[in-house]
């Protein structure tokens, strides 16, 4: 269903917050799509990284319900290829932190299956905790 969006500066504070957290001038992104084309996990995402940048640019808070920033594996392929020298991985991290800092963990560590825990190396557990819990 095609949605109408209001291009007003009302939701500029969302953009400013993400720009401050990620230390990126997000309005500089000109939507060339290289980050989406480079992302190894883009097929798992509901919206592509370039669309994520676009929604932040327009201050659309619905981005917080998307799972894109949770699929990001911080592999920095987009970082080394962005022609504008921006860093989408930092924008994804800022979106995650916006949720995590409200104390809402993304995964419930207690119900990670026991047989999984047995084989997972510490580097996996520690990294996952860092990215998915507050």
């Amino acid at each position: 269903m095609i949605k109408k969006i209001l291009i007003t500066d009302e939701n500029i504070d969302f953009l400013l917050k993400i720009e401050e957290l990620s230390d990126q001038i997000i309005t500089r992104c000109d939507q060339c799509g290289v980050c989406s084309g480079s992302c190894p996990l883009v097929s798992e995402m509901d919206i592509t990284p370039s669309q994520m940048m676009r929604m932040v640019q327009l201050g659309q808070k619905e981005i917080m319900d998307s799972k894109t920033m949770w699929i990001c594996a911080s592999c920095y392929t987009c970082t080394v290829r962005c022609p504008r020298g921006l860093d989408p991985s930092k924008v994804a991290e800022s979106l995650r932190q916006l949720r995590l800092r409200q104390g809402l963990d993304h995964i419930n560590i207690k119900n990670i299956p026991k047989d999984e825990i047995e084989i997972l190396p510490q580097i996996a557990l520690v990294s996952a905790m860092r990215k998915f819990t507050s």
Partner: protein
Amino acid sequence: MEEEKNKRLDPQEVMERIAAASKPMVAGVEDKDVEYWVTIYIMGRAYKVPADLTILTAMEYAGYKFIRGCGCRQGFCGGCSTVYRKKGEYKLQSGMACQTRVEDGMYLVQIPFVPAEKASYDINKEEYNVSTMFKYYPELARCVSCNTCTKACPQKLEVMDYVQAAIKGDFKAVAELSFDCIQCGLCALRCPAELVQYDIAQLVRRMYGRYGSGKEPEHLLKRIKEIEEGKFNQEMDKITSLTREDLEKLYAEREREPD
């Protein structure tokens, strides 16, 4: 002015004053006998108490009855954890009420019990490896090694070090570093990653004791053999055959430390 006087005492004199103050102060000594007084704030309410008491005895002097939040009174049961702030300092410090002297202007509150959830497990059925620990306490992986727990520990243990050793699977180090832990909960209260360090250390100490140290507990085994050989049967029969009065008499005259 009063506070100045306390500061200049040399340690020897301090020991004597504690000894004098520890005389059964609670039992109705007149105010005139007390030489030095301090004001402390228990949960915000001011009380004038003799200068040299521990927080525990000072609170009792102020009229508090301890149902919980007190145990061995000797600093090893971890029951009387307290959070306090000295006058003029910004830091919230923590320690055992029975081991910390009161100071003038001290603001304090007791945290008698830390509601942490201890995992239930049967140590016999657990394997001796790192994943067992992560199975019961996955949050261990959240440790950011910021060392806040070490600063909170009244026993001055290197708490962060034993947590890191746990992640590394160096159970021997965990056991040794956490041996003196009195499970007072103060580290868990301060941890930004919301770990319960002492429960984790307890699990590791049990695993290490059971599988890791490889040394058998000789005196325990010796004692068990003696019991099985019936060394104490004769004495046991004697006690079990006593009447209630004899038992009470025996109990009253028992040898124990002074009040």
